[in-house]
Structures are given as structure tokens and as C-alpha cells.
């Protein structure tokens, strides 16, 4: 059966289920489905458009450089702003796949040129970061494009981190991680609320999810780097506690899905989680990556899950690499942890089998 006819039937069935008060804009929905089938591009086309955009940006930069634009401060500022505005306008008016390349290229080019201009005015780096943040925020609120929304969000986080780093105010990283973790948990757990709030938020939802994951990972990586300078972060354990708290916050939802009712099981789960995660007290990267994995499994978000797993493996390797213990001690530690985990696996398998028999 034709896809459009299929979807029409689906809509009618849902409408019948929901009752009389349910109204939907059938024309708009069918139009959106049609557009999706038209614009389904293979991976080849998407990658081609990204690389094509990059190549074009490179040549345009070269042109601007050779044309002596870099000598003119006002010229740089004007062109930079023009490019960003053009990118957003093109994106709002024309939403065909082809124009995506051009708008993304213009957007990145705009920021690069603007950056050059601002640095020539000898504005302090931090104010430049603030200006970028403001522009990215404005772009986020005006355009529905997936990639621009994603890039803008990550840009805002990167600017925040840059301000923290350049001020050497590393204690603020706890605030950053806490904020992003709270946002991440809220966004993942309240999908229905955000999807139905208004149309703008609904389109922003998907890029926001993955952008927040990347922002959290960025913050964790910065934390790791800063730890190299041991005495610049006070209350090293604070971020771990915040992230472990976030995991404990998500746990009731998970336990609900597992239909765990006995209090003893609940207590055991919380206890085991806290104990296991307490070993990572001075390294918030592990609870952070684990939080991403848990949230992704909760809403069946494959991309987030893959990113979370890769990050988790990387952070574990780094954790053990950084431990100041001899190889022998590390090997004993690893083997005993391995045994503990296998023990937990056997325990859970047995428990699930006995539950099923009941």
C-alpha cells in the first residue's frame, strides 16, 4: 500500500481511539510525510553535502584572505554577520535538502569571519565567547534546521567552557556539569511534555538531545584535562556526587519499568549502585557516561546509546591508565572487579529465572 494512504489510515485509527476532542491537521501531516520521502537521502548524499560545504568554505576563506578582507576590521564584521544572517534566512525560507549545504557552509563561514574580525578589534577572548553565545542562542530560537540547532547548542556549551578555562575558574566546572546533567535528565524524561509544548520546541527536541550529550562529554573531557593540574579544582568529588545523584534520580523510573515492587530489592539496587559508583568518586567521567547510557536505554535512543558506550569504554581505559598503582595491583583490582561483576550477573540471572517461575 502507498505510504501516504497507510499513514492516513493510521491517523484515522488514532483519532478514533482518542475520541471527539482530538483534532489534527491532516493536510499538514501528510505534507510532512511526503516531504520526508522526497528528502530521504542516502548516507552518500548527506556526506557529500557536508564535504562539499567544507570544500566551498575553504575556498571562500581563501578568497576573502587574498582579497585583503582580513585587513579591514569593519569589513570582516559586516561580512561575518551577513553570512550568519543569510544562513538563517535561507534556512527558514527554503527547506530543501540542497539548500542545507549552502546554509551550513554560510553559518560556519560567518562565525569564522566574525571571529577574525572581533579578534582584530582586540576584544578580550571572553567577550568574544559571550558574543558567539548570544548569536548562537538567537539562531537556535529562530531556525528549525537540525544541524544549525545542533551546532549552535554545542557552540554555546563550548563557549561556556572556554570562559571557565580562560578565567582558570575551574571550580565553576561543577556548576556547568550540574547544569548540563540536570538539563539532560529533564529533556530525556519529559519527552511528551516538550513535544506537545509548542511546534518550535518539538522541532528542536531531537538536535537538543544529542547536542546535550555532546555538551556533557565536552565538560567531562575538560574536567579530565584540568585534573592534570591537581590543585586547580577544589572539591574534586562534587561533580561525581552530582552525577551519581542524577543516576539515582533516574532509578525510580527504571525500577518502575522493571516492575520491581519488593522493598528489599529496591534497597538492594540503590545500595549496590551507590557502592559501585562510589569507587569513581574522584572521576566523574564514569558516572557521566553511565548516565548517558541509562537515559538512552530508557527512551530507546540508539545514537545516544552508541555514543555513551564508546565514551564509557574510553573513560574506563583512561581511569585505569591514570591510576598510580603498579601493574600487579591494577591486575588484581581488575580481576576482582571482574569477578564481582560476573557474580552480579549470575545473581541477577538466577533471580529473574526464579521470578518468572513464580
Amino acid at each position, binding site marked *: 500500500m502507498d505510504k501516504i494512504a497507510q499513514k492516513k489510515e493510521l491517523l484515522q485509527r488514532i483519532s478514533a481511539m482518542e475520541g471527539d476532542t482530538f483534532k489534527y491537521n491532516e493536510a499538514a501531516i501528510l505534507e510532512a510525510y511526503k516531504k520526508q520521502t522526497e528528502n530521504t537521502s542516502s548516507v*552518500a548524499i548527506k556526506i*557529500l553535502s557536508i564535504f562539499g560545504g567544507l*570544500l566551498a568554505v575553504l*575556498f571562500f576563506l581563501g578568497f576573502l584572505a587574498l582579497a585583503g578582507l582580513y585587513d579591514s576590521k569593519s569589513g570582516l564584521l559586516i561580512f561575518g554577520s551577513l553570512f550568519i544572517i543569510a544562513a538563517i534566512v535561507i534556512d527558514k525560507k527554503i527547506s530543501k535538502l540542497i539548500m542545507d549545504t549552502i546554509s551550513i557552509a554560510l553559518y560556519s563561514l560567518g562565525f569564522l569571519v566574525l571571529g577574525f574580525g572581533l579578534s582584530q578589534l582586540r576584544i578580550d577572548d571572553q567577550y568574544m565567547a559571550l558574543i558567539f553565545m548570544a548569536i548562537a542562542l538567537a539562531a537556535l530560537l529562530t531556525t528549525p534546521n537540525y544541524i544549525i540547532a545542533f551546532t549552535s547548542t554545542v557552540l554555546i556549551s563550548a563557549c561556556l567552557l572556554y570562559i571557565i578555562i580562560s578565567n582558570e575558574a575551574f571550580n565553576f566546572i561543577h556548576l556547568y556539569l550540574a547544569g548540563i546533567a540536570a538539563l539532560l535528565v529533564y529533556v530525556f524524561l519529559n519527552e511528551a511534555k516538550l513535544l506537545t509544548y509548542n511546534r518550535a520546541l518539538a522541532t528542536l527536541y531531537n538536535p537538543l538531545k544529542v547536542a546535550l550529550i555532546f555538551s556533557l562529554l565536552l565538560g567531562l573531557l575538560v574536567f579530565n584535562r584540568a585534573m592534570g593540574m591537581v590543585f586547580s579544582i577544589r572539591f574534586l568529588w562534587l561533580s561525581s556526587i552530582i552525577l551519581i545523584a542524577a543516576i539515582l534520580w533516574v532509578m525510580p523510573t527504571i525500577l518502575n519499568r522493571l516492575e520491581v515492587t519488593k522493598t528489599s530489592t529496591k534497597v538492594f539496587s540503590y545500595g549496590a549502585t551507590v557502592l559501585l559508583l562510589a569507587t569513581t568518586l574522584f572521576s566523574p567521567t564514569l558516572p557521566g557516561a553511565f548516565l548517558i547510557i541509562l537515559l538512552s*536505554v530508557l527512551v530507546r535512543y540508539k545514537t545516544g546509546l552508541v555514543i555513551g558506550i564508546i565514551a564509557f569504554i574510553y573513560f574506563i581505559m583512561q581511569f585505569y591508565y591514570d591510576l598510580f598503582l603498579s601493574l600487579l595491583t591494577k591486575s588484581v583490582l581488575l580481576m576482582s572487579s571482574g569477578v564481582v561483576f560476573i557474580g552480579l550477573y549470575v545473581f541477577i540471572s538466577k533471580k529473574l529465572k526464579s521470578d518468572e517461575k513464580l
Partner: protein
Amino acid sequence: MIKLDKEDIELLSRHSNWSEKNVEHALKTTIYSTKTDWQNFLKLVFLSLGIGFSVAGIIFFFAYNWADLHKFVKIGLIEGLIIITTLIAVFSKLQAPVKNAILTGAALLVGVLFAVFGQIYQTGANAYDFFLGWTLCISLWVVVSSFAPLWLIYIVLINTTVVLYAQQVAHDWTFLFICLLLFLINSVFLIAALFLNRTKAPLKLSNWFTNTIALGSICYSTIGLCYGLFESPQLEFYILLIVVIIAYSAAIKYGLQSKNAFYLAVIPFSVIILISALFVKISDDFGMFLFIGLFVVISVTLVIKNLINLQRSWTK
């Protein structure tokens, strides 16, 4: 229960007055992970962490004692592992993909064996020796298994051997000659793989495999030709040019025939890069850069438009 997709829920919630509660219910019942999903997840997490940590612990234990082990023990250990894995791969009753994965592990262990050998006896040989020996020794296994990842490792090893040989021994090979050689070698493997796909169906090597080899070949040809453009004209450049023209035309024809968008995207992109390089050679004036920038945007857009139309006609 109505079967809903994630995109169905997204589109519907956007264009209707679907209440938050009902959207939540729809999400929970059709999209979010179920109880069995979570149970499987927990079991998988603990099992993989358990096995991973235990194996890592064992490896670390050997690493700690490595310097003190007698050389016979070191080599014997790795050879023992190779024998065990190969025996498992050949004689056990496991499923084919698992056996192939184990055989791949054995092939990698051969490399480890040679590395340890070199370290113990301080052979100080040129690195290409090591890769050449490794490649030759696992050739039989690779041919017999017809397992795509193993073939990919094999081709990477061949490429590495050639590059290192060129760097360390054959100092009179020009850069263009190396590019031409690598392009030809990878293209031969590509053609063989595609040919096998057509004729002997059970030996089908997946798309990502052939696409990766093709990508490698096209990288070599693009880099080689770009480099050659800016050097004084050499014989190898013209040979490479002719070979590439023939190969690209054949590949485009193949792509159209087999409805594979990959070739129809990458080859035009390579051509666009080469034409841009040609423009730069003609004049590196600032006006030319603007022209090239516009040229790239327009040509990429045309290629994408073409591809979309082709894909639409294919799915009809």
C-alpha cells in the same frame, strides 16, 4: 495495539492537539524500552563488564611479569594462543560468524608474534619486513575464510607494506608512482570483490567493504593527480590520468547499473576536487578563489540533485 513509529508520534504531536498524557502513553507503550529490554540490558552490562575486567586483569598480570619471562615462554605463549584459536575456528561447532571472528583474532595474534620476536631478538629490521611477513603468513587464512573484516585488515596490511617499502627501500620510486601502484592494487581487489559478488553469490562481500576499498583507491588517485598537477609533467602523471579516466568511467557505469549511490557521489566529488585544483593552477588570484568557491557549491548541488532524482527513479 497500533504500530507507531517515532516519526509518527513526532509529526502527529506537532500538528495536532494531542494531549501530553496521551503522547506519554503512546511513547511508553510503543517506543520506550520494556521490562525484558531492561532485564537483558542489565544481564549484558554485568556480563560484558565482568568478562572485560577479568580479561584485562589477566593481560595486566602478564604485562607486569613480561620482562621477567623467559623468551621461550613469551613466544610459546603466543604460539599456543594462535594454535588454540585456530583449532577452535576450524573444529568447533560454533556458528560461522563467531568462527570467523576467532580466526581474525588468530590473524592479529600472528602480528603480535612477529612483533614480540622482533623485540626479543632486536632484529632491527626495517618495519616493512614485519608487515610483509605478517601479510604473507595470514594469506591462506584470509582466502579461505572470505570474511569481510579479515579481508579489510589484509588489504590494509598490503597497503602498509607497500608504503613502508617505498619509504625505506625503494627510494627511487616517485610519489606519483606510489600513488599509481596503490591505486592499481586496491582497484584490482575491488574489481575482484565485485566480480565475486556477481558470480558466486554465497561468497557475497558486503557493500561497506567494497565501498571502503573504493574510497581508498579514489583517495590515492585524487591525491596523486592533484600532486602531479603542480609538478612538472612526468610520464607517470599521464599514465595515472589515463588509468583513472578509464577506471572512473567504468565505476560510474557500474554504479548506474547496480543502483549504488556511493560511486555516483564519490567519483563526481573527486572530479570536482581535481577541476578546482586545475583552476588554482591556472591562476591563484583572489578572484579565482571566489570563482572556485561558487563552482564547488553549484557543482555539488547539481550532483546532489541528480542523485536525488536517480534515487527517486530507482525506488519507483
